Protein backbone atom coordinates (compact mmCIF):
# COMPACT_ATOMS: atom_id res chain seq x y z
CA UNK A 1 0.00 0.00 0.00
CA UNK A 2 1.27 3.46 -0.90
CA UNK A 3 1.42 6.13 1.85
CA UNK A 4 -1.92 7.62 2.88
CA UNK A 5 -0.37 10.92 3.97
CA UNK A 6 -1.06 12.22 0.47
CA UNK A 7 -3.58 12.03 -2.36
CA UNK A 8 -3.30 10.77 -5.91
CA UNK A 9 -4.70 11.52 -9.35
CA UNK A 10 -5.75 8.84 -11.81
CA UNK A 11 -3.09 10.28 -14.13
CA UNK A 12 -0.52 9.15 -11.46
CA UNK A 13 0.52 12.47 -9.92
CA UNK A 14 0.65 12.60 -6.12
CA UNK A 15 0.18 15.60 -3.87
CA UNK A 16 1.33 15.95 -0.26
CA UNK A 17 -0.01 18.97 1.66
CA UNK A 18 1.94 20.61 4.48
CA UNK A 19 1.29 24.15 5.79
CA UNK A 20 -0.68 25.27 2.72
CA UNK A 21 2.03 24.08 0.34
CA UNK A 22 1.44 21.08 -1.93
CA UNK A 23 4.43 18.96 -2.92
CA UNK A 24 3.73 17.27 -6.26
CA UNK A 25 5.34 14.30 -7.97
CA UNK A 26 4.46 11.20 -9.94
CA UNK A 27 3.92 7.74 -8.51
CA UNK A 28 6.33 4.83 -8.56
CA UNK A 29 3.80 3.07 -10.81
CA UNK A 30 4.06 5.87 -13.39
CA UNK A 31 7.85 5.82 -13.18
CA UNK A 32 8.00 2.07 -13.71
CA UNK A 33 5.66 2.31 -16.71
CA UNK A 34 7.43 5.24 -18.34
CA UNK A 35 10.90 3.67 -17.80
CA UNK A 36 14.06 5.03 -19.41
CA UNK A 37 13.41 8.70 -18.59
CA UNK A 38 15.31 11.33 -20.57
CA UNK A 39 13.74 14.75 -20.02
CA UNK A 40 11.59 16.72 -17.58
CA UNK A 41 10.04 20.11 -18.31
CA UNK A 42 8.64 22.02 -15.30
CA UNK A 43 7.06 25.48 -14.98
CA UNK A 44 9.05 28.46 -13.67
CA UNK A 45 8.94 29.38 -10.01
CA UNK A 46 6.32 32.14 -9.67
CA UNK A 47 4.07 30.82 -12.45
CA UNK A 48 0.53 29.63 -11.90
CA UNK A 49 -0.74 26.07 -12.25
CA UNK A 50 -4.38 24.97 -12.39
CA UNK A 51 -5.93 21.86 -10.91
CA UNK A 52 -6.44 19.27 -13.64
CA UNK A 53 -4.41 21.25 -16.19
CA UNK A 54 -1.10 20.37 -17.77
CA UNK A 55 1.90 21.76 -15.88
CA UNK A 56 4.78 20.08 -17.68
CA UNK A 57 6.11 17.18 -19.69
CA UNK A 58 8.08 14.09 -18.89
CA UNK A 59 9.81 12.28 -21.70
CA UNK A 60 11.02 8.70 -21.81
CA UNK A 61 12.84 6.78 -24.51
CA UNK A 62 9.42 5.70 -25.74
CA UNK A 63 7.13 8.73 -25.45
CA UNK A 64 6.35 12.22 -24.18
CA UNK A 65 3.72 12.37 -21.42
CA UNK A 66 1.89 15.35 -19.97
CA UNK A 67 1.95 16.06 -16.25
CA UNK A 68 -1.29 17.25 -14.60
CA UNK A 69 -1.54 19.44 -11.56
CA UNK A 70 -3.49 18.18 -8.53
CA UNK A 71 -3.92 21.78 -7.28
CA UNK A 72 -4.32 25.39 -8.38
CA UNK A 73 -1.86 27.99 -7.15
CA UNK A 74 1.59 29.49 -7.45
CA UNK A 75 4.78 27.46 -7.99
CA UNK A 76 7.12 28.29 -5.12
CA UNK A 77 9.87 25.72 -5.76
CA UNK A 78 10.92 23.22 -8.42
CA UNK A 79 13.21 20.22 -7.97
CA UNK A 80 16.14 21.39 -10.10
CA UNK A 81 18.27 18.42 -9.07
CA UNK A 82 15.62 16.18 -10.65
CA UNK A 83 15.41 18.29 -13.82
CA UNK A 84 19.20 18.05 -14.17
CA UNK A 85 19.21 14.29 -13.67
CA UNK A 86 15.81 12.86 -14.57
CA UNK A 87 17.44 9.46 -15.08
CA UNK A 88 17.80 9.31 -11.29
CA UNK A 89 14.01 9.16 -10.84
CA UNK A 90 13.10 5.58 -9.92
CA UNK A 91 10.45 3.56 -8.13
CA UNK A 92 12.26 3.91 -4.80
CA UNK A 93 12.47 7.72 -4.74
CA UNK A 94 9.38 8.68 -6.76
CA UNK A 95 7.28 9.36 -3.67
CA UNK A 96 10.11 11.06 -1.83
CA UNK A 97 13.18 12.87 -3.20
CA UNK A 98 11.72 12.48 -6.70
CA UNK A 99 9.18 15.28 -6.07
CA UNK A 100 8.79 17.85 -8.86
CA UNK A 101 6.98 20.98 -7.67
CA UNK A 102 5.95 22.81 -4.53
CA UNK A 103 2.81 24.87 -5.00
CA UNK A 104 1.25 27.42 -2.62
CA UNK A 105 -2.27 26.37 -3.44
CA UNK A 106 -5.73 27.88 -3.32
CA UNK A 107 -7.71 24.89 -4.52
CA UNK A 108 -7.34 21.11 -4.79
CA UNK A 109 -8.59 19.01 -7.67
CA UNK A 110 -11.90 17.29 -6.92
CA UNK A 111 -10.48 14.16 -8.56
CA UNK A 112 -7.85 13.48 -5.88
CA UNK A 113 -8.07 10.03 -4.32
CA UNK A 114 -6.70 8.40 -1.22
CA UNK A 115 -4.15 5.59 -1.49
CA UNK A 116 -6.75 2.80 -1.42
CA UNK A 117 -8.79 4.33 -4.25
CA UNK A 118 -5.62 4.88 -6.28
CA UNK A 119 -4.60 1.24 -5.86
CA UNK A 120 -8.07 0.23 -7.11
CA UNK A 121 -7.42 2.36 -10.18
CA UNK A 122 -4.11 0.63 -10.79
CA UNK A 123 -5.76 -2.78 -10.56
CA UNK A 124 -8.13 -1.80 -13.35
CA UNK A 125 -5.26 -0.43 -15.40
CA UNK A 126 -3.13 -3.58 -15.15
CA UNK A 127 -4.53 -5.57 -18.07
Amino acid at each position, binding site marked *: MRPNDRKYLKSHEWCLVEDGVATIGISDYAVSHL*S*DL*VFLDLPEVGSQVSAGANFGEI*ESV*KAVSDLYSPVSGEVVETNEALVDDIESLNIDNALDTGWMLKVKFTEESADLMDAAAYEECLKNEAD
Partner: protein
Amino acid sequence: MKETALKSTHVHHRARMVDFAGWEMPVQYTGIREEAAHVRKHAGLFDLGHMGRVRVKGAQAEDFLQKLQTNDAAKIPAGAIRYAMILDENGLTQDDILVYRHQNSVDFFLVINAGNSERDLGIMRDTASGFDVSVVDQTEELGMFAIQGPASQDIVQKITDIDLSAIGYYRWTEGDVAGHHVEISRTGYTGEDGFEVYAEQAKIVELFDAFLNAGKDHELRPIGLAARDTLRLEAGMPLYGHEIDETTTPLDAGLDFGVKFTHDFTGRAALEKIQAAGGPKRRLVGLTTESRRVPRQGYPVMSGDNEVGCILSGAVSPTLDTNIATTYLPHDLAEVGTTVEFAIRDKRESATVVHLPFYKRQR
Protein backbone atom coordinates in the same frame (compact mmCIF):
# COMPACT_ATOMS: atom_id res chain seq x y z
CA MET B 1 -3.79 -11.04 -31.74
CA LYS B 2 -1.41 -13.69 -33.03
CA GLU B 3 1.11 -15.23 -30.65
CA THR B 4 4.52 -16.71 -31.35
CA ALA B 5 5.63 -20.04 -29.89
CA LEU B 6 7.70 -18.11 -27.35
CA LYS B 7 4.96 -16.09 -25.67
CA SER B 8 5.07 -17.96 -22.36
CA THR B 9 8.86 -17.73 -22.40
CA HIS B 10 8.62 -13.94 -22.64
CA VAL B 11 6.07 -13.76 -19.87
CA HIS B 12 8.30 -15.97 -17.72
CA HIS B 13 11.14 -13.49 -18.31
CA ARG B 14 8.84 -10.61 -17.31
CA ALA B 15 8.62 -8.99 -20.72
CA ARG B 16 6.21 -6.15 -21.37
CA MET B 17 4.06 -7.42 -24.25
CA VAL B 18 2.59 -5.19 -26.97
CA ASP B 19 0.74 -5.47 -30.26
CA PHE B 20 3.20 -5.29 -33.14
CA ALA B 21 1.72 -5.70 -36.64
CA GLY B 22 -1.02 -7.91 -35.17
CA TRP B 23 1.38 -10.03 -33.11
CA GLU B 24 1.73 -10.01 -29.34
CA MET B 25 5.46 -9.36 -28.95
CA PRO B 26 7.92 -8.52 -26.13
CA VAL B 27 8.74 -4.80 -26.42
CA GLN B 28 11.14 -4.71 -23.48
CA TYR B 29 12.34 -6.77 -20.52
CA THR B 30 14.36 -4.39 -18.33
CA GLY B 31 15.03 -1.08 -20.08
CA ILE B 32 15.45 -0.14 -23.72
CA ARG B 33 18.79 1.64 -23.43
CA GLU B 34 20.27 -1.00 -21.19
CA GLU B 35 19.07 -3.87 -23.42
CA ALA B 36 20.51 -2.21 -26.53
CA ALA B 37 23.86 -1.61 -24.84
CA HIS B 38 23.89 -5.21 -23.62
CA VAL B 39 23.67 -6.56 -27.18
CA ARG B 40 26.61 -4.40 -28.31
CA LYS B 41 28.70 -5.70 -25.40
CA HIS B 42 27.55 -9.30 -24.91
CA ALA B 43 24.68 -10.99 -26.74
CA GLY B 44 20.90 -11.01 -26.92
CA LEU B 45 18.15 -13.35 -28.10
CA PHE B 46 15.30 -11.93 -30.17
CA ASP B 47 11.97 -13.60 -30.92
CA LEU B 48 11.27 -13.01 -34.62
CA GLY B 49 8.29 -15.34 -34.87
CA HIS B 50 6.22 -12.51 -36.31
CA MET B 51 8.30 -12.16 -39.47
CA GLY B 52 6.99 -13.76 -42.64
CA ARG B 53 8.81 -16.85 -43.97
CA VAL B 54 8.18 -18.02 -47.51
CA ARG B 55 9.62 -21.01 -49.38
CA VAL B 56 10.00 -20.59 -53.14
CA LYS B 57 10.58 -23.81 -55.09
CA GLY B 58 10.31 -25.08 -58.62
CA ALA B 59 12.26 -25.08 -61.88
CA GLN B 60 11.54 -21.40 -62.48
CA ALA B 61 12.02 -20.12 -58.92
CA GLU B 62 14.90 -17.92 -60.06
CA ASP B 63 12.94 -16.49 -63.01
CA PHE B 64 10.02 -15.74 -60.71
CA LEU B 65 12.31 -13.89 -58.28
CA GLN B 66 13.84 -11.86 -61.10
CA LYS B 67 10.36 -10.46 -61.73
CA LEU B 68 9.36 -10.16 -58.07
CA GLN B 69 12.31 -8.32 -56.52
CA THR B 70 15.08 -5.85 -57.21
CA ASN B 71 18.27 -7.84 -56.58
CA ASP B 72 19.79 -10.13 -59.22
CA ALA B 73 18.70 -13.61 -58.14
CA ALA B 74 20.78 -15.20 -60.91
CA LYS B 75 23.94 -13.85 -59.28
CA ILE B 76 23.20 -15.08 -55.77
CA PRO B 77 25.54 -18.03 -55.10
CA ALA B 78 24.15 -21.20 -53.52
CA GLY B 79 24.01 -20.70 -49.75
CA ALA B 80 24.13 -16.90 -49.99
CA ILE B 81 21.63 -14.21 -49.00
CA ARG B 82 20.83 -10.80 -50.50
CA TYR B 83 18.84 -7.76 -49.41
CA ALA B 84 16.14 -6.72 -51.90
CA MET B 85 12.90 -4.84 -52.30
CA ILE B 86 9.52 -5.58 -53.77
CA LEU B 87 8.29 -2.54 -55.75
CA ASP B 88 5.12 -1.62 -57.54
CA GLU B 89 5.03 -0.45 -61.17
CA ASN B 90 5.82 3.10 -60.01
CA GLY B 91 9.01 1.99 -58.29
CA LEU B 92 7.46 2.53 -54.85
CA THR B 93 8.48 0.17 -52.07
CA GLN B 94 5.99 -2.51 -51.05
CA ASP B 95 8.44 -4.31 -48.77
CA ASP B 96 12.09 -4.96 -48.10
CA ILE B 97 13.08 -8.60 -47.88
CA LEU B 98 15.93 -11.06 -47.60
CA VAL B 99 16.39 -13.56 -50.42
CA TYR B 100 18.08 -16.81 -49.38
CA ARG B 101 19.38 -19.15 -52.08
CA HIS B 102 19.47 -22.76 -50.92
CA GLN B 103 22.63 -24.86 -50.96
CA ASN B 104 20.94 -26.95 -53.67
CA SER B 105 21.02 -23.80 -55.82
CA VAL B 106 17.44 -24.32 -57.07
CA ASP B 107 15.25 -23.38 -54.12
CA PHE B 108 14.89 -20.03 -52.39
CA PHE B 109 13.63 -18.79 -49.05
CA LEU B 110 12.32 -15.28 -48.36
CA VAL B 111 12.03 -13.42 -45.07
CA ILE B 112 9.49 -10.60 -45.23
CA ASN B 113 8.04 -8.03 -42.83
CA ALA B 114 5.13 -9.06 -40.60
CA GLY B 115 3.11 -5.96 -41.44
CA ASN B 116 3.44 -6.55 -45.18
CA SER B 117 3.21 -10.31 -45.37
CA GLU B 118 -0.37 -10.49 -46.64
CA ARG B 119 0.26 -7.94 -49.36
CA ASP B 120 3.58 -9.60 -50.27
CA LEU B 121 1.92 -12.99 -50.58
CA GLY B 122 -0.72 -11.46 -52.85
CA ILE B 123 1.96 -9.92 -55.07
CA MET B 124 3.81 -13.24 -55.08
CA ARG B 125 0.71 -15.18 -56.11
CA ASP B 126 0.00 -12.71 -58.94
CA THR B 127 3.63 -12.73 -60.07
CA ALA B 128 3.84 -16.54 -59.90
CA SER B 129 1.24 -17.14 -62.59
CA GLY B 130 3.05 -18.20 -65.75
CA PHE B 131 6.07 -19.51 -63.86
CA ASP B 132 6.75 -23.09 -62.83
CA VAL B 133 7.10 -22.18 -59.17
CA SER B 134 5.51 -22.92 -55.83
CA VAL B 135 5.26 -20.18 -53.21
CA VAL B 136 4.53 -21.56 -49.75
CA ASP B 137 3.95 -19.37 -46.71
CA GLN B 138 5.78 -21.21 -43.90
CA THR B 139 5.28 -18.55 -41.22
CA GLU B 140 3.08 -20.88 -39.17
CA GLU B 141 5.01 -24.11 -39.41
CA LEU B 142 8.48 -22.57 -39.13
CA GLY B 143 9.61 -20.50 -36.16
CA MET B 144 12.44 -18.00 -36.07
CA PHE B 145 14.65 -16.20 -33.59
CA ALA B 146 17.98 -14.38 -33.65
CA ILE B 147 21.08 -14.27 -31.51
CA GLN B 148 23.00 -11.02 -31.90
CA GLY B 149 26.10 -9.59 -30.29
CA PRO B 150 29.85 -10.24 -30.19
CA ALA B 151 29.50 -13.43 -28.09
CA SER B 152 27.01 -15.02 -30.51
CA GLN B 153 29.32 -17.45 -32.27
CA ASP B 154 31.00 -18.65 -29.08
CA ILE B 155 27.61 -19.32 -27.53
CA VAL B 156 26.05 -21.22 -30.44
CA GLN B 157 29.22 -23.21 -31.13
CA LYS B 158 28.79 -24.83 -27.70
CA ILE B 159 25.61 -26.57 -28.84
CA THR B 160 26.32 -27.49 -32.44
CA ASP B 161 28.77 -29.48 -34.58
CA ILE B 162 28.20 -27.08 -37.48
CA ASP B 163 31.45 -25.15 -38.01
CA LEU B 164 29.99 -21.68 -37.51
CA SER B 165 33.23 -19.92 -38.39
CA ALA B 166 32.76 -21.31 -41.91
CA ILE B 167 29.43 -19.45 -42.34
CA GLY B 168 30.33 -16.10 -43.87
CA TYR B 169 28.34 -12.88 -43.49
CA TYR B 170 24.99 -13.24 -45.31
CA ARG B 171 25.49 -17.00 -45.79
CA TRP B 172 23.39 -19.84 -44.44
CA THR B 173 23.45 -23.56 -43.92
CA GLU B 174 21.50 -26.28 -42.17
CA GLY B 175 22.32 -28.81 -39.49
CA ASP B 176 21.64 -29.77 -35.89
CA VAL B 177 21.75 -27.33 -33.00
CA ALA B 178 20.96 -28.62 -29.50
CA GLY B 179 19.66 -31.83 -31.09
CA HIS B 180 17.18 -30.10 -33.40
CA HIS B 181 17.38 -29.59 -37.13
CA VAL B 182 17.70 -25.88 -38.00
CA GLU B 183 18.53 -23.57 -40.84
CA ILE B 184 20.93 -20.90 -39.65
CA SER B 185 22.17 -17.72 -41.32
CA ARG B 186 24.78 -15.16 -40.37
CA THR B 187 22.38 -12.25 -40.63
CA GLY B 188 20.68 -9.81 -38.31
CA TYR B 189 19.21 -6.40 -37.72
CA THR B 190 21.45 -4.91 -35.05
CA GLY B 191 24.78 -4.09 -36.68
CA GLU B 192 26.44 -6.84 -34.59
CA ASP B 193 27.64 -10.29 -35.53
CA GLY B 194 25.06 -13.00 -35.00
CA PHE B 195 22.73 -15.57 -36.46
CA GLU B 196 19.11 -16.00 -37.37
CA VAL B 197 17.74 -19.46 -36.71
CA TYR B 198 14.80 -21.22 -38.36
CA ALA B 199 13.26 -24.42 -37.06
CA GLU B 200 9.99 -26.28 -36.77
CA GLN B 201 7.59 -24.31 -34.61
CA ALA B 202 7.36 -27.21 -32.11
CA LYS B 203 11.11 -27.06 -31.43
CA ILE B 204 11.42 -23.30 -30.99
CA VAL B 205 10.86 -23.09 -27.23
CA GLU B 206 13.38 -25.86 -26.53
CA LEU B 207 15.90 -24.27 -28.88
CA PHE B 208 15.46 -20.81 -27.37
CA ASP B 209 16.03 -22.27 -23.89
CA ALA B 210 19.04 -24.23 -25.12
CA PHE B 211 20.55 -20.99 -26.45
CA LEU B 212 19.86 -19.20 -23.15
CA ASN B 213 21.50 -22.06 -21.26
CA ALA B 214 24.53 -22.15 -23.54
CA GLY B 215 24.85 -18.39 -23.14
CA LYS B 216 24.76 -18.30 -19.34
CA ASP B 217 28.49 -17.61 -19.04
CA HIS B 218 28.27 -14.97 -21.78
CA GLU B 219 25.47 -12.87 -20.26
CA LEU B 220 23.00 -13.93 -22.97
CA ARG B 221 19.54 -12.45 -22.34
CA PRO B 222 16.28 -12.09 -24.24
CA ILE B 223 15.95 -8.60 -25.75
CA GLY B 224 12.77 -6.74 -26.73
CA LEU B 225 11.66 -5.19 -29.99
CA ALA B 226 12.24 -1.63 -28.74
CA ALA B 227 15.96 -2.24 -28.20
CA ARG B 228 16.08 -4.01 -31.57
CA ASP B 229 14.67 -0.85 -33.13
CA THR B 230 17.35 1.28 -31.43
CA LEU B 231 20.08 -1.11 -32.59
CA ARG B 232 18.94 -1.21 -36.20
CA LEU B 233 18.61 2.57 -36.28
CA GLU B 234 22.13 3.02 -34.91
CA ALA B 235 23.33 0.63 -37.61
CA GLY B 236 21.52 2.71 -40.26
CA MET B 237 19.22 -0.12 -41.32
CA PRO B 238 15.86 0.99 -42.73
CA LEU B 239 12.58 -0.14 -41.16
CA TYR B 240 9.50 -0.49 -43.31
CA GLY B 241 6.88 2.04 -42.21
CA HIS B 242 9.63 4.47 -41.20
CA GLU B 243 12.49 5.10 -43.67
CA ILE B 244 10.77 3.22 -46.47
CA ASP B 245 7.13 2.74 -47.40
CA GLU B 246 4.69 3.00 -50.30
CA THR B 247 5.79 6.62 -50.92
CA THR B 248 9.55 5.99 -51.24
CA THR B 249 11.75 4.47 -53.92
CA PRO B 250 15.00 2.60 -53.19
CA LEU B 251 16.79 5.54 -54.83
CA ASP B 252 15.43 8.02 -52.24
CA ALA B 253 16.52 5.73 -49.44
CA GLY B 254 20.02 5.12 -50.78
CA LEU B 255 19.28 1.41 -51.05
CA ASP B 256 20.73 1.14 -54.56
CA PHE B 257 22.94 -1.73 -53.40
CA GLY B 258 19.81 -3.90 -53.27
CA VAL B 259 18.74 -2.95 -56.80
CA LYS B 260 20.40 -4.46 -59.88
CA PHE B 261 19.34 -3.15 -63.29
CA THR B 262 20.26 -6.46 -64.88
CA HIS B 263 16.83 -8.07 -64.98
CA ASP B 264 13.21 -7.21 -65.58
CA PHE B 265 11.82 -6.59 -62.07
CA THR B 266 8.55 -4.83 -61.39
CA GLY B 267 9.24 -1.10 -60.98
CA ARG B 268 12.49 -1.07 -62.98
CA ALA B 269 11.18 1.24 -65.73
CA ALA B 270 9.94 3.77 -63.16
CA LEU B 271 13.32 3.84 -61.39
CA GLU B 272 15.15 4.30 -64.70
CA LYS B 273 12.87 7.21 -65.53
CA ILE B 274 13.71 8.88 -62.20
CA GLN B 275 17.42 8.34 -62.82
CA ALA B 276 17.17 9.73 -66.37
CA ALA B 277 15.51 12.86 -64.95
CA GLY B 278 18.49 13.51 -62.66
CA GLY B 279 17.73 11.19 -59.75
CA PRO B 280 15.65 11.69 -56.61
CA LYS B 281 15.20 15.21 -55.23
CA ARG B 282 15.78 14.16 -51.65
CA ARG B 283 18.12 11.99 -49.67
CA LEU B 284 17.91 9.90 -46.51
CA VAL B 285 20.14 11.36 -43.80
CA GLY B 286 20.87 10.91 -40.14
CA LEU B 287 20.36 13.57 -37.46
CA THR B 288 21.88 13.92 -34.02
CA THR B 289 20.64 16.31 -31.34
CA GLU B 290 22.23 18.55 -28.74
CA SER B 291 19.29 18.54 -26.34
CA ARG B 292 17.83 15.56 -24.55
CA ARG B 293 14.50 15.85 -26.37
CA VAL B 294 14.00 12.81 -28.54
CA PRO B 295 13.03 13.29 -32.19
CA ARG B 296 10.15 10.90 -32.99
CA GLN B 297 8.36 9.67 -36.08
CA GLY B 298 6.11 12.37 -37.54
CA TYR B 299 7.72 15.42 -35.93
CA PRO B 300 8.18 18.19 -38.54
CA VAL B 301 11.75 19.00 -39.62
CA MET B 302 12.26 22.74 -40.11
CA SER B 303 14.80 24.93 -41.82
CA GLY B 304 14.03 28.47 -40.74
CA ASP B 305 10.29 28.88 -41.22
CA ASN B 306 10.06 26.13 -43.83
CA GLU B 307 8.92 22.63 -43.05
CA VAL B 308 11.42 20.60 -45.08
CA GLY B 309 10.65 17.08 -43.97
CA CYS B 310 9.61 14.94 -41.05
CA ILE B 311 11.26 12.56 -38.62
CA LEU B 312 11.06 8.93 -39.80
CA SER B 313 12.64 7.15 -36.82
CA GLY B 314 14.12 8.51 -33.63
CA ALA B 315 15.77 7.01 -30.58
CA VAL B 316 18.00 7.58 -27.64
CA SER B 317 21.29 6.01 -28.72
CA PRO B 318 23.13 4.35 -25.84
CA THR B 319 26.07 3.59 -28.14
CA LEU B 320 26.58 7.18 -29.34
CA ASP B 321 25.33 8.87 -26.16
CA THR B 322 23.11 11.26 -28.13
CA ASN B 323 19.68 11.12 -29.68
CA ILE B 324 19.50 9.97 -33.28
CA ALA B 325 16.93 10.19 -36.04
CA THR B 326 16.42 9.77 -39.76
CA THR B 327 14.71 12.07 -42.24
CA TYR B 328 14.55 12.83 -45.95
CA LEU B 329 16.03 16.22 -46.84
CA PRO B 330 16.43 18.06 -50.14
CA HIS B 331 20.03 17.86 -51.38
CA ASP B 332 20.93 21.43 -50.39
CA LEU B 333 20.12 20.66 -46.74
CA ALA B 334 21.46 17.11 -46.75
CA GLU B 335 25.15 17.94 -46.47
CA VAL B 336 26.85 16.61 -43.33
CA GLY B 337 27.10 19.33 -40.70
CA THR B 338 23.97 21.23 -41.80
CA THR B 339 21.84 22.41 -38.88
CA VAL B 340 18.07 21.96 -39.02
CA GLU B 341 15.40 21.93 -36.32
CA PHE B 342 12.68 19.54 -35.34
CA ALA B 343 9.42 20.67 -33.80
CA ILE B 344 8.30 18.95 -30.62
CA ARG B 345 4.84 20.18 -29.73
CA ASP B 346 5.23 24.00 -29.61
CA LYS B 347 9.00 23.96 -29.16
CA ARG B 348 11.95 23.75 -31.54
CA GLU B 349 15.14 21.76 -31.00
CA SER B 350 18.20 21.86 -33.20
CA ALA B 351 19.69 18.84 -34.94
CA THR B 352 22.75 18.24 -37.11
CA VAL B 353 22.93 16.23 -40.33
CA VAL B 354 25.37 13.30 -40.01
CA HIS B 355 26.47 10.35 -42.12
CA LEU B 356 24.52 7.11 -42.02
CA PRO B 357 25.08 4.67 -40.46
CA PHE B 358 25.46 6.19 -37.00
CA TYR B 359 27.33 3.11 -35.86
CA LYS B 360 29.56 0.56 -37.54
CA ARG B 361 31.15 -2.24 -35.57
CA GLN B 362 34.91 -2.81 -35.74
CA ARG B 363 35.68 -6.09 -37.49
